[in-house]
């Protein structure tokens, strides 16, 4: 298990995203999949910054990466902010015309698209968001190799 903890503020985003990319790379995930995982990670972190710690900059977020079953990667996001209800967030109408689109609300939708299994639980004073990720190699293999 590898882990990192940083203040739950936007300035930490780069460090945390780099950490997750390194975990996925070490697990043998391909670049395209790593980018999808980075996207889901950013969306999860921004939600934690906004909803778990809406008004203070003293909060902390911790990420743990663990090898899962088969070739899966498990990423856990832990914070001690206020409880947020992951399942209630983000069900945008992606077919709505521009005038009817709400600005934002897409983060959790993107997480669900990019992550094979998302779980959320409140344990003692912690919010724990878990991503279980498959390599999804088949989609990458279909891409032609760039010459030279």
């Amino acid at each position: 298990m590898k882990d990192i903890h940083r203040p739950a503020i936007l300035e930490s985003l780069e460090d945390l995203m780099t950490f997750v990319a390194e975990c996925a790379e070490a697990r043998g995930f391909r670049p395209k999949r790593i980018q999808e995982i980075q996207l889901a990670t950013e969306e999860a972190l921004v939600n934690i910054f906004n909803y778990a710690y809406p008004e203070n900059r003293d909060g902390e977020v911790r990420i743990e990466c663990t090898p899962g079953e088969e070739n899966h990667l498990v990423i856990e996001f832990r914070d001690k902010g206020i409880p947020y209800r992951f399942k209630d967030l983000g069900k945008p109408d992606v077919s709505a015309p521009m005038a009817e689109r709400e600005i934002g609300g897409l983060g959790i939708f993107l997480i669900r698209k990019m992550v094979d299994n998302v779980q959320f639980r409140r344990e003692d004073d912690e919010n724990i968001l878990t991503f279980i990720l498959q390599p999804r190699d088949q989609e990458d293999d279909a891409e032609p190799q760039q010459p030279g």
Partner: protein
Amino acid sequence: MEMTNRKEGEALVMSVKGRMDAVTAPEFEKAVQGLMGEGEISFVIDLADLDYISSAGLRSILALAKKLKTADGSLRLAALQDTVKEVFDISGFSSIIPISDSVEAACSS
């Protein structure tokens, strides 16, 4: 993220390089709004060198597209990389923001 601008006829072509995330998207939004303040209303955003976009980037683009529409202007995107295009497709943004294969095509449409 780096931004460079040039004029192509009536259109202001802005090339965006790097990553458009929760940290950098507000910089992009501010830059376009600054140009709008100088009277530009027809924008082509060249994304050939954009490697990554998150919902924060989508949010900025949608907000600008709405503002420009209100001002009788336009915002077109050009030359999206596959991974960035995928995010636009999944989120349904491909059907609400005009996307062209090249800057030339975006400028002439």
